[in-house]
């Protein structure tokens, strides 16, 4: 428990004033604009949008600036802002097959319809610091090539034609929403996917990595990873039809997992799914691996007691705003709590000391008598 205390107003005001000054940094250095953050720190902006669960690049860039680059603080700002918005409704489910792919790779098929498109990736870079960026940031324009109108089908679609992979399955049109109702267990897959897509990237990565190292291993291949823009459609009641109300960049990962069959399912490939706002490749792959691990029950697999199989553990600890809220609250005044603890320790200690003194006295009696 912590108790409201008065006082310290001036100290708080001055602390905030200093925070503002520190945020600005050396005034001889040009101030960073929100547009610069949006354009040049795009992956940071993407992460704040994904975990803040609100797609708005300008807002995420502003939050990063306000938070001095502290990502969780920025995500917190976005989550808080989100709660002030009236919700106009829900979109029609996205059609990711219609994505304008800027990157699309498959680790399972070399020659696939639509091809392997690398896009603007860090893969194959040497991870050497580029000192030229410090000296001169100008870059040449990237080469361009003629585009083809060939469709870029989902990889799982053509595995499905042979019946070698499980069907994606049906569900309710209006999925449960953990921003409206508190999370309850057992959580169905749509709720799990919602929690995972907004979960902390580091947590999701750690959980996914644990499955690769053997804690609930599920033999994942990246069947497909695609990044690109998808239109968002919504029914507009006053119009009586659906329109596109926006366009968002998404990263989608479909894993294809080896599965030797179970009591209820034949041997086939099973699927894990990741879909995340922005170019968020690591998070999307992590999400797919964790999604697959959490599906052990519906696939009739054994629960080997791995953390990534424990839905309550994963979903209750993946949200970095909940986590940081509870973690950081312990630095707030707990004076009364602590006073009572202090009293208790003093009392216990006094009792121990008295008992010891009494024992010593008893031992010393013969000596004193000599």
């Amino acid at each position, binding site marked *: 428990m912590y108790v409201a205390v008065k006082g310290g107003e001036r100290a708080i005001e001055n602390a905030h004033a200093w925070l503002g000054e520190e945020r600005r940094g050396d005034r001889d250095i040009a101030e960073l604009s929100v547009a610069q953050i949006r354009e040049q720190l795009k992956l940071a902006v993407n992460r704040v949008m994904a975990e803040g669960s609100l797609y708005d690049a*300008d807002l995420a860039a502003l939050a990063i600036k306000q938070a001095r680059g502290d990502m969780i603080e920025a995500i917190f700002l976005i989550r808080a802002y989100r709660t002030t918005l009236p919700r106009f409704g829900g979109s029609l489910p996205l059609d990711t097959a219609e994505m304008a792919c800027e990157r699309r790779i498959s680790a399972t098929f070399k020659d696939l319809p639509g091809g392997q498109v690398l896009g603007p990736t860090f893969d194959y870079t040497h991870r050497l610091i580029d000192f030229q960026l410090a000296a001169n940031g100008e870059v040449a324009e*990237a080469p361009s090539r003629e*585009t083809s109108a060939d469709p870029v089908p989902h990889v799982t679609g053509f595995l499905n034609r042979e019946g070698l992979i499980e069907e*994606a399955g049906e569900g309710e*049109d209006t999925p449960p929403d953990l921003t409206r109702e508190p999370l309850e267990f057992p959580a169905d897959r749509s709720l799990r996917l919602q929690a995972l897509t907004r979960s902390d990237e580091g947590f999701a990565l750690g959980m996914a990595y644990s499955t690769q190292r053997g804690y609930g291993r599920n033999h994942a291949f990246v069947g497909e990873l695609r990044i690109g823009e998808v239109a968002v459609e919504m029914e507009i009641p006053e119009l009586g039809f659906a*329109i596109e109300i926006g*366009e968002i960049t998404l990263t989608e990962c479909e894993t294809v997992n080896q599965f030797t069959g179970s009591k209820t399912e034949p041997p086939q490939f099973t699927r894990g799914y990741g879909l995340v706002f922005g170019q968020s490749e690591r998070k999307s792959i992590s999400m797919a691996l964790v999604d697959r691990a959490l599906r052990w029950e519906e696939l009739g697999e054994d629960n080997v007691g791995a953390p990534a199989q424990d839905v309550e553990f994963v979903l209750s600890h993946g949200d970095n705003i909940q986590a940081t809220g509870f973690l950081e609250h312990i630095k707030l005044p707990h004076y009364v709590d602590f006073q009572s603890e202090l009293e208790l320790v003093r009392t216990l200690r006094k009792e121990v000391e008295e008992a010891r003194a009494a024992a010593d006295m008893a031992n010393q009696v013969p000596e004193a008598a000599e």
Partner: protein
Amino acid sequence: MLDQTTDTARRDWLSLLAKSPTGRARDLLSALDLSPSHELLRAPEIGSVMVRGRAGGTGAPFNLGEITVTRASLKLACGTVGHGYVQGRSKEDALSAALIDALMQTEAADHIADAVLAPLRQEMATRRATRAGKAAATKVEFFTMARGED
């Protein structure tokens, strides 16, 4: 009520306006120097829309996260109603979209289509084609160096 073909056309221009870059449609409209009198039916309002994905791309829907959307509705002096929905938080853009939507249902439609919608469509198609071209340049062309058999 509007007939089916008009619905399709209206859907197209509303979708175009919703996705256009901040301020662009407003700039193109204001360059025309039209300021038709109108009354607001719904003052510009910033809100969110919950975006839904599907498990496995084609399966059960789930809530992915929200996007910011701003909307406005107005009525021209002639009684024509326009609705504007735009991605983001620009109230001016939502008003411009509603005004363009209303004007597109009047005799000014051809003029607006040529001077506002056509350049908007063109610019967005160019941007998309540029990115698609760069993506195409990163497409891998495999060639076999040597085969292990024989």
